[in-house]
């Protein structure tokens, strides 16, 4: 499938443009002919097996995501959302089942090999960056995600110019602080940096793990908008975990509701257009005020 890819610079430039509203990815997707990017079959994972604390986190979960699809995962606490993302990224080994990304069976692949397929932005801004290292060094690490680190000069002038330019479009002034330690940045700045780092080399699949939950509302909005623009412009295959039902209704072209380690509800296409927070909430066994309020 040939699709003209917009230059990353243009994409980032549009992130913070106040006159453009958040794009609705659902307008152009799903594409019926899109090849499968992520395929998960019969995934099982039990914690503390054989003890009194036994907990089935993933209970034969199956899921597939087409290229360019944007799925929003919702579900109450303990439904298996984080376990699923950890299983995809490789941070957690599964007991059973298979995970295929871009036709590559990654089920038993270690995290560092899987990294060439997967980029992830965590809820905790501390997790996605190396805090004792500079902004420039972090950008380099992100650029090396899809390739092997070589015995060649790291921060070349060419690279630095490239990073500076890309960061300048965030309009956070990070481009003038290339030698600043990331630990000195605010949570929002760090999360914005994490996002640029995640998409600088377009991942086959982008995992967003409640990545705006730890930010104040204004910053959360900024980061979320930047995310949506990057995802839509680069047509990234994305899985976003959110506790905010409104997000699930507004963004993405697919809603995946998890419950007890299974996909309980999978809404896409025209059906998703008609979904409201109220209709989603009705699906929850236990109504959660927290989710309704979008906390």
């Amino acid at each position, binding site marked *: 499938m040939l699709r003209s890819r917009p230059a990353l610079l243009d994409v980032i430039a549009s992130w913070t443009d106040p006159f453009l509203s958040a794009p609705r990815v659902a307008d152009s997707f799903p594409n019926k002919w899109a090849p499968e990017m992520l395929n998960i079959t019969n995934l099982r994972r039990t914690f503390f097996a054989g003890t009194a604390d036994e907990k089935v986190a993933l209970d034969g979960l199956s899921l597939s995501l087409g290229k360019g699809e944007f799925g929003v995962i919702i579900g109450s606490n303990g439904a298996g959302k984080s376990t699923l993302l950890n299983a995809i990224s490789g941070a957690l080994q599964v007991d059973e089942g298979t995970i295929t990304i871009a036709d590559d069976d990654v089920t038993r692949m270690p995290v*560092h090999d899987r990294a060439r397929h997967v980029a992830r932005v965590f809820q905790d801004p501390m997790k996605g960056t*190396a805090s004792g290292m500079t902004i420039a060094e972090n950008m380099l690490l992100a650029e090396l995600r899809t390739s092997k680190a070589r*015995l060649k000069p790291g921060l070349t002038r060419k690279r630095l110019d490239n990073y500076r330019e890309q960061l300048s479009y965030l309009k956070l002034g990070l481009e003038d602080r290339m030698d600043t330690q990331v630990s000195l940045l605010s949570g929002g700045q760090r999360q914005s940096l994490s996002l640029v780092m995640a998409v600088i080399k377009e991942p086959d699949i982008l995992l967003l793990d409640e990545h705006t939950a730890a930010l104040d509302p204004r910053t959360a909005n900024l980061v979320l908008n930047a995310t949506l623009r990057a995802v839509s412009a680069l047509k990234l295959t994305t899985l976003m975990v959110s506790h905010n039902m409104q997000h699930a209704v507004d963004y993405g072209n697919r809603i995946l509701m998890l419950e007890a380690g299974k996909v309980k509800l999978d809404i896409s296409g025209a059906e998703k257009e008609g979904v409201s927070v109220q209709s989603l909430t009705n699906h929850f066994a236990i109504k959660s005020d927290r989710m309704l309020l979008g906390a």
Partner: protein
Amino acid sequence: MNEVISTFIALIPVTLAQSLILSFVVLAIMIPFRILSFPDLTSEGAYPLGGAVCAIAMVSGVPAYLAIPLAVAAGFVAGCATALIHLRFKIHTLLAGILVTTMLYSVNLRILGKPNVPLFKETKLFDYLDLGKGMNNLEKILIVGLLMGVVGFGLRLWFMTERGIAMRAVGDNPDMAEAQGNNVDRAIFLGVGAAGGCAALSGSLMVQSQAFVDVNMGIGLLINALAALMIGETILGRRKISQQLLAPFVGSLIYYQLISFCLAAGLAPSDLKIATGIFVLVMLGAPILKGKRNTTRLAKESIRE
């Protein structure tokens, strides 16, 4: 007082030579501790291991310039053993290092066959440079200084490469480094192994400098090296990688001069341990007592489990 000063000055060359040799041990402490967040005690065993391997090789007729690489290789293996114990069995890094150091004591005795071996007849590395009579210390200073320059410059270059930067990320945030495609285990093997190699290099130079090897030569060395590192870091800071790499060398030079001054001032050698302890405490404690909040980071480093 004049007598103290003149004794101190007379000691400067020999202390300088010693501190240059021992600066490699300080480097061996710094690399795992600061770069990889892997506090490691293997150096205390790798240092005499390097001495033992080098000495036995030289006694068996291997020339010094080949005996030293052999010692470094042995030290590298010792470092890798510590890394393996930590990574494979999830044993705390400090405990893994203590285990390896303890076991190395027996290994070192096996290698040497007896507690100490003299190296009088053998041609030492320092004998290749002949500046005439009475210039022994200068020869050592020049040769080890050159070696130090090469190692330091090499490390500086390494940490500017893609791989070097990736290695630092492993120490800074292992989960993130892994998620960015870096093999964390391999970086730890390489880093801790290299540290073992540095300690062994120091040991092999020391036995050639003092012309004998003793199986007990590493005991108590670690706290000296740590004190030297703290002094270097306090003076230079460690915000930049170049400062961090220079700190072991500068710290070692200053620390051993301080110790030498204590000796010149009449302190009994048996009292040096408490002096060293006080140095470390002052270096770590002074910034906190002064209330500088940023520098308190020095004291409470996160320790890798």
